[in-house]
């Protein structure tokens, strides 16, 4: 089995994880820009991070035969400071032409505040202006339902954004329907403690069908599992899903969405 890991924060993982992912069949890993676990003090910190994602990390992945792609943005956890966010957003265009950049992400909301929403709208505008794909982070736990609604409204308000070019990540049973109804793609994140278990993710696949859905581990510096996608593929097999159905969810679906990026299409 080969698969694409469409959401992983590899800068916070050890090299052994790349090896284990490659052994499990991973052929490409996609890394959205995210919160480092602490707030960066200046735009220069983000510029360094964008260089890490576009220069250093692809080399680390290549040692294990993995293609590495990334998304760029300021994440929602650092979006309360609108002035800082504006300065970081101004940095992004100079990186967009780099060959492993897929688009703008993971943008979204965290606590559903007015400032976060303003910064989200600024980044949707950035994506529209530069014809970029969008990857969206939806809030955690009690904030997810409300945040997903606010995000969908913001995306619909920007008429230059085509829904099939947007992936809304971290959906659960109470948000997946509204995302698919909006014509966007939905990502199911497999976490040991929050978000989805493999069993629940497969329940949603069986309920909603496999169109416009993908699976990801979103592995980072917290409790997470870089092998969550192949483990879920194994769970699908236990439940009697055929190899072609598994291949669609773990390989062909992410490839289809990501191939809307010329950088991905050219490399794959």
């Amino acid at each position, binding site marked *: 089995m080969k698969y694409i890991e469409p959401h992983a924060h590899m800068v916070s993982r050890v090299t052994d994880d790349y090896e284990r992912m490659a052994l499990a069949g991973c052929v490409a890993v996609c890394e959205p820009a995210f919160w480092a676990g602490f707030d960066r003090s200046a735009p220069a910190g983000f510029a360094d991070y964008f260089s890490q994602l576009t220069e250093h990390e692809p080399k680390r992945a290549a040692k294990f035969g993995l293609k590495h792609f990334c998304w760029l943005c300021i994440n929602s956890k650092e979006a309360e400071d609108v002035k800082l966010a504006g300065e970081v957003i101004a940095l992004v265009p100079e990186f967009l032409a780099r060959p492993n950049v897929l688009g703008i992400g993971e943008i979204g909301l965290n606590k559903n505040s007015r400032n976060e929403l303003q910064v989200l709208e600024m980044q949707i505008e950035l994506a529209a202006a530069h014809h970029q794909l969008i990857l969206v982070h939806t809030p955690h*736990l009690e904030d997810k339902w409300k945040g997903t*609604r*606010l995000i969908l409204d913001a995306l619909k308000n920007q008429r230059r954004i085509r829904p099939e070019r947007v992936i809304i990540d971290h959906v659960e*049973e109470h948000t997946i329907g509204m995302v698919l109804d909006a014509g966007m793609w939905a990502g199911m994140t497999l976490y040991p403690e929050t978000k989805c278990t493999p069993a629940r993710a497969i329940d949603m696949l069986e309920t909603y069908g496999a169109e416009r859905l993908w699976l990801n581990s979103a592995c980072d510096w917290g409790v997470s599992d870089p092998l969550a996608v192949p483990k879920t593929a194994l769970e699908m097999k236990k*439940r009697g899903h055929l190899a072609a159905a598994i291949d669609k969810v773990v390989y062909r679906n992410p490839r289809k969405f990501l191939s809307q990026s010329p950088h991905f299409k050219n490399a794959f």
Partner: protein
Amino acid sequence: MNRQQVLDLYFLDARHRLVELAAFLDRVERAGGPDDFRMRSFRAALAALDGRQRDRARKVLLAFSDLTTQPVARAEAKGACGAPRGPERGRR
């Protein structure tokens, strides 16, 4: 999968989780003191498990959700605790 196959694959795991849940409720009540907003949501979520209604996972998640629709004035913290704080937020 038919129902028998689903039970074969998941029954023991679900039984394990249900016993853990029961023990958690016993532990909370043994500790004494008042409930907080989290337990209010928790008890509302338990009600969604009752009976033979379907769509339980979605209903449980909604019981733990902020169901207001307007942005908050300011993000006072970064983390989430699993249940909405305001009494008006978890009702629908």
